[in-house]
């Protein structure tokens, strides 16, 4: 007998979503973490969403995850990024109150009867051969389980750097690192590697000269991440923009050797898209100035997060360059920025459902797979949580397609291509930017959520009602005819006029023509939310483009339909290049489509792989 079906080690954004999925699937679930008070803690910037990431939040929400709902309860400023670039790449981003977010996550998790939370530092994995059997905590308690999900974040052999002199073993500022656990995983024979990431200093808002910084307001409170509930948002506040110019550059250049990164103290590789201010100045010496965003940490504090000035310089230098930023001349630093180095496990050691290939029913999710970002962690948590339960029930794993969700892009990139820097999502990572949108996440994923029985009856009704409304708007647009006299006032901004009566759906294709206003002008009542209208409008406007991407997705599906058995003896396939044999042997792709994405696999390798697979099948049959 086992104490639990599923144990999740870690209470960050991967762990909490894994727990939510496992509990929704009615598996008896334990979430164990070193500090229950920091469940759902945002270790870095106090914001959720952004480019591609915002879409992941909605995907997680569509499947019943906690992130979207918690964000709605903690949003203190909302902005839709990319508004000018077309709705296909609109990216919702919410500045959050850290405390409200953490509390919301805790509250949401405690609603699941199947989920228990406990505090403890896991030090050992319990194994039976190559199967996982549970975990043991540092205080000697043993918890047995049929599946274990590790979501340890940056805690595994975490080491904080402040300049070249100061190094502190820590999971993040203020938390102990996890040393024994790292050893336990290494003992399984998994390859370990190191990454680094960083965080900027934080300052006391009462010491900012507000006359020298630019105010940035949010979009108002219309938008919600969650498809299932519409909570009232907390009070909305502003963010502030200033610049790091020549004086800052000069100070940093002068102290560059004292930086942990440039002084040689850090060996791990950092993310290119989230560079430290040292990196920016060294790599782009011609840039005159760099933007700095002052973001409130919460409603009940004056502390500000100085976004854009991530650094591993010694504390006195941080203070010196902060004072060279306009508006921060007299700023008091509340917390110093730092770089952190940590263990991760190259994710090519995982299956496309995030189970380790080495140990059965042991799953990894989140930053220990070499990703960065709360949203990327949450997406992996969902995949691991769902599949841990499916594996112990003996069911087929659920693999998200690259055309299904950014979650699919993320996991496929990780397990197929591996990582050589902390991985973050962008729309550019997807072949199907137009299909994977924030507005249609529910439409894309509801069928799966229903098939897996992830949702309550009430949630299902809410989702179906919403999709039904989108259908009604589409139907109305396709059926209703609009006359020139009705349409022309709406078309004023587009520089076009209507020659003769036409279907609303046709007129709405014109750039700049709003579907909602056209329907209204044509006399159709539209008692729907903006999000419903926007979703329908995108389907109409981008009709042709969407069809093209769907065609491309169908071609991919054909390759994906060619399954590659897990136990193919790749090393024996002599018609494949040696490099291809070794890579395929390590990755063990699930389909020809996945094999095609393995770096270094040539088209002729693929051809030969098909032949070899067919031969192998005949041989074993």
């Amino acid at each position, binding site marked *: 007998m086992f104490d639990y079906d599923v144990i999740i080690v870690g209470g960050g954004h991967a762990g909490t979503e894994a727990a939510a999925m496992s509990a929704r699937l009615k598996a008896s679930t334990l979430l164990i973490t070193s500090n229950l008070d920091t469940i759902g803690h945002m270790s870095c910037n106090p914001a959720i969403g952004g*480019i*591609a990431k915002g879409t992941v939040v909605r995907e997680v929400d569509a499947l019943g995850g906690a992130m979207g709902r918690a964000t709605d309860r903690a949003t203190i400023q909302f902005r839709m*990024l*990319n508004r*000018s*670039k*077309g709705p*296909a*790449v609109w*990216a919702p981003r919410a500045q959050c109150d850290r405390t409200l977010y953490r509390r919301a996550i805790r509250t949401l998790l405690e609603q699941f009867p199947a989920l228990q939370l406990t505090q403890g530092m896991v030090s050992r994995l319990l194994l039976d051969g190559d199967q996982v059997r549970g975990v043991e905590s540092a205080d000697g308690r043993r918890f047995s389980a049929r599946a274990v999900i590790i979501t340890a974040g940056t805690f595994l052999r975490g080491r904080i750097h402040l300049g070249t002199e100061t190094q502190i073993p820590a999971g993040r500022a203020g938390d102990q690192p996890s040393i024994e656990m790292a050893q336990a995983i290494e003992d399984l024979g998994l390859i370990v590697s190191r990454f680094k990431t960083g965080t900027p200093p934080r300052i006391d808002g009462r010491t900012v000269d507000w006359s020298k910084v630019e105010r940035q307001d949010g979009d108002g409170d219309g938008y919600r991440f969650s498809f299932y509930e519409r909570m009232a948002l907390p009070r909305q506040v502003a963010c502030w923009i200033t610049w790091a110019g020549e004086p800052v550059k000069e100070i940093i250049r002068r102290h560059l050797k004292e930086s942990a990164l440039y002084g040689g103290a850090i060996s791990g590789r950092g993310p*290119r*898209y*989230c*560079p430290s201010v040292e*990196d*920016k100045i060294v*790599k*782009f010496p011609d*840039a005159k*100035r*760099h*933007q700095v*965003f002052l973001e409130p940490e919460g409603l009940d504090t004056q502390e500000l997060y100085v*976004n*854009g000035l*991530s650094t591993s310089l010694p504390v006195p230098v941080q203070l010196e360059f902060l004072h060279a930023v306009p508006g921060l001349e007299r700023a008091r630093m509340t917390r110093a920025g730092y770089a952190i180095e940590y263990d991760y496990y190259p994710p090519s050691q995982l299956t496309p459902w995030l189970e380790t290939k080495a140990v059965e029913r042991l799953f990894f999710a989140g930053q220990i797979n070499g990703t960065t970002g709360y949203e990327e962690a949450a997406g992996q948590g969902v995949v691991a949580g769902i599949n841990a339960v499916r594996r112990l029930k003996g069911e087929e794993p659920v693999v998200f397609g690259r055309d299904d969700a950014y979650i699919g892009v993320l996991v496929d990139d990780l397990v197929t*291509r591996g990582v050589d820097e902390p991985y973050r999502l*962008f*729309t*550019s*990572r*997807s*072949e199907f*930017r*137009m299909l994977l949108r924030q507005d249609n996440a529910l439409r894309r994923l509801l069928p799966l959520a229903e098939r897996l029985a992830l949702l309550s009856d009430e949630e299902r009704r809410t989702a179906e009602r919403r999709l039904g409304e989108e259908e009604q708007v589409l139907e109305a647009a396709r059926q209703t005819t609009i006359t020139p006299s009705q349409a022309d006032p709406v078309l004023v901004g587009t520089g076009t006029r209507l020659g003769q009566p036409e279907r609303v759906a046709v007129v709405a294709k014109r*750039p*700049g023509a709003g579907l909602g206003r056209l329907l209204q002008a044509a006399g159709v009542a539209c008692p729907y939310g903006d999000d419903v209208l926007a979703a329908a409008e995108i389907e109409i406007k*981008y009709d042709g*483009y969407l069809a*093209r*991407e769907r065609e*491309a997705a169908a*071609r991919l599906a*054909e*390759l994906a339909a060619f399954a590659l058995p897990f136990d193919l003896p790749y090393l024996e396939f002599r*018609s494949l290049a040696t490099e291809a044999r070794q890579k395929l042997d390590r990755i063990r792709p699930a389909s020809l489509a996945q094999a*095609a*994405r393995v*770096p270094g696999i*040539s*088209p*002729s390798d693929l*051809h*030969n792989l*098909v*032949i070899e697979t*067919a*031969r192998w099948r005949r041989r074993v049959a």
Partner: protein
Amino acid sequence: MLTDPIVALATPPGRSAVALIRLSGRGVFALAARCLAPFRAEPARTVFRARLRHPASGEAIDDALACCFPGPHSYTGEDLVEISTHGGLVVPGAAVAALVAGGARPAEAGEFTRRAVLNGKMDLLQAEATADLIDAGAPVQRRRALQQLERGLSGRLEALRGEILDLEALIAYEIDFPEEDAGPVAPDLVRGAWCVARERVAGLLATAPEGERLREGALCVIAGRPNAGKSSLFNALLGTERAIVTEIPGTTRDAIEAPAVIAGFPFRLVDTAGLRDSQDRVEKIGIEVSRRYLGAADLVVFCEEGVVRGASSDPVREEFLAHVRAPVVVVHTKVDLDQSDGPTVRPAVVSVSAVTGAGLEELKRRLAAEAFGRLLALGDVEPVVTRARHRAALERALAELDGFQAARSAGVDAAAAATHLRAAVTALDDLIGVVTPDEVLDRVFASFCVGK
């Protein structure tokens, strides 16, 4: 798609007794049954005679022989039908068109062999050896030149893909990094990158007609009035007595085609019946054939007797020249018979004696310059598109690049317009391996300081 029905002419185009058409893929027996009556899939690998009709119009196209090969026991490993029709310029084309109307897709170059490889009927080495064998049919120098050109082409295609990726990186930056220091990308930058990429694709594509001629041979048709000395010139260019030469006008009644290497370049020379109003039925058919060859010609040599050049406006020549779209080289033949010391001929005209060989080398240079002028100008270093497959991919890429610009001008937003760039890159993927989105991001990170 890997298994959709495809069709192609398996024998080379041109005059021949028979032509072989291959049809392969899912459901080709049902597809063939729509065009062939009677149709017999059973017994397998047994030839039957059938009427080939256009499935929509019902128009009879040919009396054909057909044979079904159920997969996996076929060349491709799929269900396959082979249809033998009469050869020539028209029937095989019409037959392929009928099968396309019946639901097949024209095969891409090498697609039958690719499917054979995919289905394990042939390994890649065999497939490559087949291709090598075809190349080895050409003279050694040409083969070597071709290999060099191929390498050059891969390099150029990679550079080209790079240009498109650079352009996509600008759009990716706009979409993925909206809050960065550099601010939005200047429209001029996008426009400039687009111009560079488009020019490159268009430039490469412009070499395709001559490049493909390099593989197939330029179709050079010798035409002119009866007894103008066409057959003598044909024989002289070939270096063999291939065509019968007499002093009787109208001796050549059928077109004769023969491969020839002229000034180092491959040609398909065609000797044709002289053009005149004839009452002779056989000769009339020959003249009709000549006209059809003229329509397909890459280059036309128009022969005139040098001694009769006094007639400055020749209505037959003028009418003829008005109807030919290919470049025309006018040749004054039989200059050995011309003893007059009249005015020298115009420079556009080459004077040749097939008997003495006078002027023959100059004519050969002219023919090479007309059919392969662009290649000659490019020299051996510049890459050239020599395959229909390459041209098709470049044409698609060009169309997508134009689609991108059209979308931008029409106010379509960045994300939608960028789908054209993805498609343009995909079009090149077949030629030069798979591109990964990482490459786009690499370019963004290399050129912009990002990191809010």
